[in-house]
């Protein structure tokens, strides 16, 4: 009867992601990108997705493959182009994918606010730029700020280093990035970990994501490295 959030496959973990769902996908470039969960989502077939992720992937694997498969209706991100990123730019120029561009810190804070029950907050980022177009501007202490809404999603796909059956997580170096806040902001958070430990196997002082923010856990012991797959010219499926 104890809580155990582990599932035996990525396929089962993503089985109920529905057409039209909003999906947060962790990672900054390849660091922290849950590539096996993304591939399971490609296999699963859900379409018309709104994907919230800092980048748009590279090559034709992982997030780029999901976009290439035509499953993503809209991207909410801060940096949709990078080295080896061709899939998104092509579809975008063809008008086949929508883009909501958000400054990176605003994106992170919107996700954190969504997870923290804050419907909106003010930030100075983007004031006086085209990215503030149409947004409420308000003055505090003589300085201008824009109102930004919190961001939630139906699902989050996140990669972590180690987890326990309650969903407690620790991450690896700069692969932490958007993981902890996306875990907070989704209705169903699905995490792939390289290693599973028993409850008590993580020092409670060092847990980065408390288990309450995680609904499903899958072990992927040897996650693929996106940049290596890209180098090898691989594509998924």
């Amino acid at each position: 009867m104890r809580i155990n959030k582990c599932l035996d496959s990525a396929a089962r973990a993503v089985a109920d992601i529905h057409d039209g769902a909003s999906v947060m996908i962790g990672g900054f470039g390849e660091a922290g990108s849950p590539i096996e969960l993304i591939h399971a989502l490609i296999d699963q077939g859900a379409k018309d997705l709104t994907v919230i992720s800092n980048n748009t992937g590279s090559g034709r694997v992982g997030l780029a493959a999901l976009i290439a498969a035509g499953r993503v209706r809209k991207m909410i991100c801060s940096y949709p182009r990078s080295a080896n990123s061709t899939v998104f730019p092509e579809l975008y120029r063809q008008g086949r994918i929508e883009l909501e561009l958000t400054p990176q810190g605003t994106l992170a804070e919107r996700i954190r606010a969504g997870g923290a029950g804050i419907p909106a907050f003010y930030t100075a980022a983007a004031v006086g730029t085209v990215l503030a177009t149409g947004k409420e501007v308000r003055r505090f202490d003589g300085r201008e700020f824009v109102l930004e809404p919190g961001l939630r999603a139906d699902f989050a796909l996140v990669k972590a280093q180690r987890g326990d059956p309650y969903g407690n997580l620790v991450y690896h170096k700069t692969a932490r990035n958007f993981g902890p806040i996306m875990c907070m902001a989704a209705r169903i958070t699905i995490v792939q970990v390289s290693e599973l430990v028993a409850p008590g196997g993580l020092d409670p002082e060092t847990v980065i994501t408390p288990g309450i923010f995680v609904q499903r856990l899958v072990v992927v012991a040897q996650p693929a490295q996106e940049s290596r797959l890209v180098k090898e010219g691989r594509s998924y499926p």
Partner: protein
Amino acid sequence: MKTAPAAAGWTREQMAQRAAADIPAGAYVNLGIGIPELVAQFTGVDAGVIFQTENGLLGMGPAPAPGHEDPELINAGKKAVTAIPGAAYFHHADSFAMIRGGHIDICVLGAMQVSAAGDLANWSTGEADAIPAVGGAMDLVAGVKRVFVLTEHTTKTGVPKIVSACTYPLTGRKVVDRIYTNLAVIQVTPAGLVVRELAPGISLEVLQQHTGAPLRLAATVPDNSPGAAS
């Protein structure tokens, strides 16, 4: 059948046990100070229930053995507690992100007054010389998915705590889901208060006499009368 202030019903432990029985496996639960703390005796990690304390611990365990207290491992009532294997510590903003963000399934709180609409007053008498102290109560009722109130049905002097409208300053409006008292289990519904269960020996009439708002009986109510098979 008794009618007057002497209506006894369930003990505090039985009240806590009754509330605990309604907490499903998988739930994350925050327990208020006082009678709600007793709930932890009747459910917990083996039943798939994990307790959060808003001062920064998910996976709160029972009180430590005497002599093993750590003054820096405490609950929101500032009493010494323990941490279960699989616990996590975090700071106050992260803790209330958990609460405000709707991640806690149930909180069990004490009450000074609950209204028929589910308004809760549990932080201040509003008297001029009272020292107002709200703590996390307003954040909890605003953020937690379901709010259970666990309280004696009346004050020590027999004044109803369940009322048509609260006279004390509110903690939150329309926030209470269910009320567990020594006399009954009562559901707050859009159509008013519905009695789901009566303590042994307590009739609806007696309950109504001790209640400041209209009650009606649910379609099915378990038979808790003293003579019923248990």
